[in-house]
Structure formats: C-alpha cells, structure tokens
C-alpha cells in the first residue's frame, strides 16, 4: 500500500473490512500536495435490483487471495497512472441498504488520471477479486449473484 511517489507516510488501508467502511476517514487522509485531483467511488447498497426489493447484502470473500489481488490491482494502477494515492476497501459480511460496500480513492496531479484509474480499479476488483454477493430480498428469499456484468 506504499505509494512510491509520495513523500508522506502512506496510510495503511486493509483491502477487506468486516466492519463499516470509514469513508470519511479514508477521504480525509487522501490528500497530497502534488495531487490536484482526488476521485472517490463509493459502491452502496441499493434498495432494489432487477426489479426486486432488496433488504441487504452479504459479501463473502476468499480473503487471502482477495487481499493480494486488490493490492496488486492498486499497485498496477499507481504505476500506470503515476498516482499519488490509491486505496480501496471492500466490505465483507452483512451490509444494509445505504451502507458502503466498497470504496476506491485515487489522487493524481491532473483529473484524467484520477478518474481513469479509479474506474479501472473498481472494475477489476468487481470482476476479478474472489468476493461474492448474496442478496436478501423483501420476500424472504436470498440469492448469490452470478456473473452479472451491468455496471
């Protein structure tokens, strides 16, 4: 999680969290005197999906591999876009409507890089990291998401 282009101590952010994501805390720490652009993405639990009323989600991860893959994705993005800051954290366990399920923060000199890297990181985490979502519906049923690529 060390940004090699930063002269400040890097914030150590665990890629997985079983507790509420402290989005405000993460954003507050994500400033850098050489970064003119900070982009934050927050993936939040919606009250509906594909026409069904959703009460909440549960995320399950194969933790050791998920952590390593997220760290590798962040390192790759940092290098590719010369980012000053790149952090990501994904929830595990139960999350309810409105909760943040995943947050990605990128910071770079100019804004094109921060946007592009942010999108790249979340797309790769969503598609590649071994993290799975189970939806709990208002009708009492639940279902593990299968490969649904809408974004």
């Amino acid at each position, binding site marked *: 999680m060390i940004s090699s282009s930063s002269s400040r101590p890097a914030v150590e952010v665990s890629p997985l969290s079983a507790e509420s994501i402290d989005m405000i805390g993460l954003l507050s720490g994500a400033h850098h005197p050489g970064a003119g652009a900070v982009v934050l993405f927050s993936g939040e639990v919606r009250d509906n999906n594909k026409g069904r009323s959703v009460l909440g989600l549960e995320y399950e991860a194969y933790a*050791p*591999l998920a952590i390593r893959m997220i760290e590798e994705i962040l390192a790759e993005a940092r290098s590719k876009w010369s980012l000053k800051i790149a952090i990501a954290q994904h929830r595990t366990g139960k999350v309810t409507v409105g909760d943040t399920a995943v947050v990605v923060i990128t910071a770079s000199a100019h804004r094109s890089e921060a946007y592009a890297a942010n999108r790249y990181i979340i797309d790769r985490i*969503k598609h590649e*990291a071994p993290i799975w979502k*189970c939806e709990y519906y208002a009708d009492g049923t639940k279902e*593990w998401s*299968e*490969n649904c690529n809408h974004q």
Partner: protein
Amino acid sequence: MARKLRAGEDKMTIHVYAKLKDYFEPEFELEETIGNTDQLQEALVRINGGASELLSTCRFAVREGFIDNTFKLEEHDIVVIIPPSSGG
C-alpha cells in the same frame, strides 16, 4: 488461511464459497485420489450433479494461488473452489 498439516491423513480438503455452498458443505474432504482439477471437477459432479454447470465456470486455488489443470494435486492439498465474481 493457515495450511493444515494433518499427519497420517491423506485426504484432500475442499473449500467452497458463495453459490457453491448451495450444493456442498463449505469445507469437506475427498476420499478418492485426485490428480488434477479436471478430475476434481468430475469427482464433485459425482457428489452433486446439480453443481455441474456452476463448477464449469469456477477457478481453483491451492496455497492462495490460482492453479490450472496442469497443476499436480497431491492428496494432502487444500483446494479452494472459486466461483465467478458477481461483477455488478
């Protein structure tokens, strides 16, 4: 995840995640001798044929790294079966 060392046992341990848990226990052992991931997939379909389609989309990991069918499985391995991510 700490690797389990179980002296005197030669059973392969299988961990499954997410939708695979609708078909298998989260963690179980296989008695038979399994040499590669194709054979593992066949063994799992014999246990629960309903998982056949899902299993064909899964990846396999040993020691926290992905493996393919060329990887020689050994009897004491812990094999993690990884369904596709939801991607949403």
